[in-house]
């Protein structure tokens, strides 16, 4: 177990920056999730840590060791592959013992360590099976046990749950997290699944186009998104395009003047609002920002109603109402009053 540092890490393919100046410090025993849309560089970053992709620039250290130029077999990072990558010609026990064999761990020591790893993933008694005789979930556990048996300094998980069905995913999520805590393993997981990331991580790194957009815990990312991308990527946001006219003032394209909390600078900007922070009808009465809106579309989602409203010719937004008994249920064509507090809106400079 050890802390892991990525310093100004960069990977350039031709003139394409796959990973661009990524600096992350992961403390001992921390569960860090790299989250982002496909092609954002999260997998390349993970593969650089594992040693499969040589960085174009930057430094990777595990504990006190600088591993930047070490080959994969000298890094001691346990990697769980998305496809599991079990050795098809070896039994479960032989798969798990592979790293011990490579390190010439004495035979007498191997069996107990294999048994312990299989016990941790609740696969005791599967020693003599071959990977093809196992279900997807069991294969996933073998892959995890194989990575754990080597007693890695860092555990790397590459979309480990994406090949499991939804119900199993929920279970395995909790199991991996428990195991990671119990063993105190410094872990990086890569995923594009936001829910998975939010439920498992100590801290999250949101990446896009090779760059780190924001690092923080769940609450920080949701309530204080660093930019418009994060505001749209983590949870849902309603966006209004317009202009920051003065500190604390925002004017939408449709000409609505809106009071916002702290807003740096002026110029073309986007206002982001969390849909659940928008109040409707009587509840909107005390809000600083209050507008008449025309309901365009209502989606019934069980616990919630998604409502598309139009505030002016150029301003549309999404709001969410809890589906409580006796609460109003707007219909398309209705005109309703909506409002929000000034600190509900976050203003971001418009991105080119």
């Amino acid at each position, binding site marked *: 177990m050890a802390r892991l540092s990525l310093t100004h890490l960069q990977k350039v393919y031709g003139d394409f920056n796959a990973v661009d100046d990524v600096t992350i410090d992961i403390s001992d025993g921390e569960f860090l999730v790299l989250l982002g849309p496909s092609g954002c560089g999260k997998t390349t970053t993970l593969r650089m840590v594992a040693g*499969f992709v040589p960085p174009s620039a930057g430094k990777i250290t595990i504990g006190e060791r600088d591993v930047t130029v070490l080959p994969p*077999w000298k890094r001691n990072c*346990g*990697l769980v592959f998305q496809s599991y*990558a*079990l050795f*098809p*010609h070896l039994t479960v026990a032989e798969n798990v013992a592979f790293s011990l064999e*490579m*390190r010439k761990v004495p035979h007498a020591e191997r069996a107990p360590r294999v048994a312990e790893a299989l016990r941790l993933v609740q696969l005791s008694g599967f020693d003599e099976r071959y990977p093809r005789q196992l279900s997807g979930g069991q294969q996933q556990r073998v892959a995890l046990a194989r990575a754990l048996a080597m007693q890695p300094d860092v555990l790397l998980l590459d979309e480990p749950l994406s090949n499991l069905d939804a119900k199993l995913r929920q279970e395995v999520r909790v199991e991996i997290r428990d195991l990671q805590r119990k063993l105190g393993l410094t872990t990086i997981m890569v995923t594009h699944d936001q829910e998975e990331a939010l439920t498992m991580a100590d801290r999250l790194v949101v990446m896009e186009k090779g760059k780190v957009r924001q690092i923080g815990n769940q609450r920080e990312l949701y309530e204080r998104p660093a930019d418009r991308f994060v505001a749209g990527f983590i949870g849902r946001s309603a966006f209004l395009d317009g202009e920051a006219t003065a500190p604390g003032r925002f004017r939408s394209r449709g000409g609505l003047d809106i009071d916002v909390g702290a807003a740096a600078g002026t110029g073309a900007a986007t206002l982001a609002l969390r849909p659940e922070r928008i109040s409707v009808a009587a509840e909107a009465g005390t809000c600083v920002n209050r507008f008449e809106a025309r309901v365009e579309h209502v989606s019934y989602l069980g616990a919630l109603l998604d409502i598309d409203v139009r505030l002016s010719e150029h301003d549309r937004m999404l709001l969410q109402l809890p589906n409580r008994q006796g609460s109003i249920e707007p219909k398309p064509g209705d005109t309703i009053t909506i409002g929000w507090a000034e600190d509900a809106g976050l203003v971001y400079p418009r991105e080119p």
Partner: protein
Amino acid sequence: MPGAAVAAGRWPGWIRRLSTAQRPSFGRIALNGAAGLSLGFILLPLVFVIWLAFFRQEIPSFPPEGYSLKWFAAVPGQKAFVDGFILSLQVGVLATLIGLALGVPASLALVRHRIPLGPLVNTLLLLPLVMPGIVLGTALYVFQIETEIATGWPVLGSAGGLIAAHTLVVVPWVVRLVTASLAGFDRTIEEAAQNLGAGPWKTFWRVTLPSIRPGIVAAGLFGFVTSFGNLEMSLFLVGPGRTTLPIAILQYLEWKIDPTVAAASVIQIVLIGTAMIITDRYVKLSRVV
């Protein structure tokens, strides 16, 4: 509506069977028939050779006068056959081993790395497979004579020269079958091995090689059979007193046509067939070839 008429059964049975629902099965019957015919055409000489080996009379004629096993008993008595068999076996085994040692790395390079003129190299390595044996034999004959003149080494007629030539016909099988098994190979398991502490060499021996073993075994088998049965090319390259089994059989046939030759062939067929069946138990040949 013709469909209704067919369904109503006013048409003869064979037309009804040709109606829409049944039509594919007619195609299927034709296809199976054609396949069966082709298979029969291929197997016919085999059947006749085996049948002939059990004839009692010395000059093959139909119908047989009776049946006997004496020709099988005669085979070990023919020194040329026994010596030829031993030489063919030695040459075949050595050529196969050398062919694998050359062909497996070549396949890895072709599939894994972008080597200059890769497709051309691939074609060159497969070429001996399509080159007529006579042409190959003549070319190698001239080449070996020229080499002898240039270096003074006795190449032509030597065991080494013969094995080198046979290696040439083994390599295409190795390259074809091994590149095919490498093409479907999931390279992440190699990464997994490296992640678990295996260097490149260990990764190759413990993960890559076992995964392409079916292709290698099949390549070895087919390479050996090709070498063992090679006649045309070998004719040019054997030296005095160094005769492979196919040449020994040919020479025997110049003087006699009794069923000893058929018996020797049956023994060969049985040996190769057994080798295939045994191999198939360990690696499914149908999956690689």
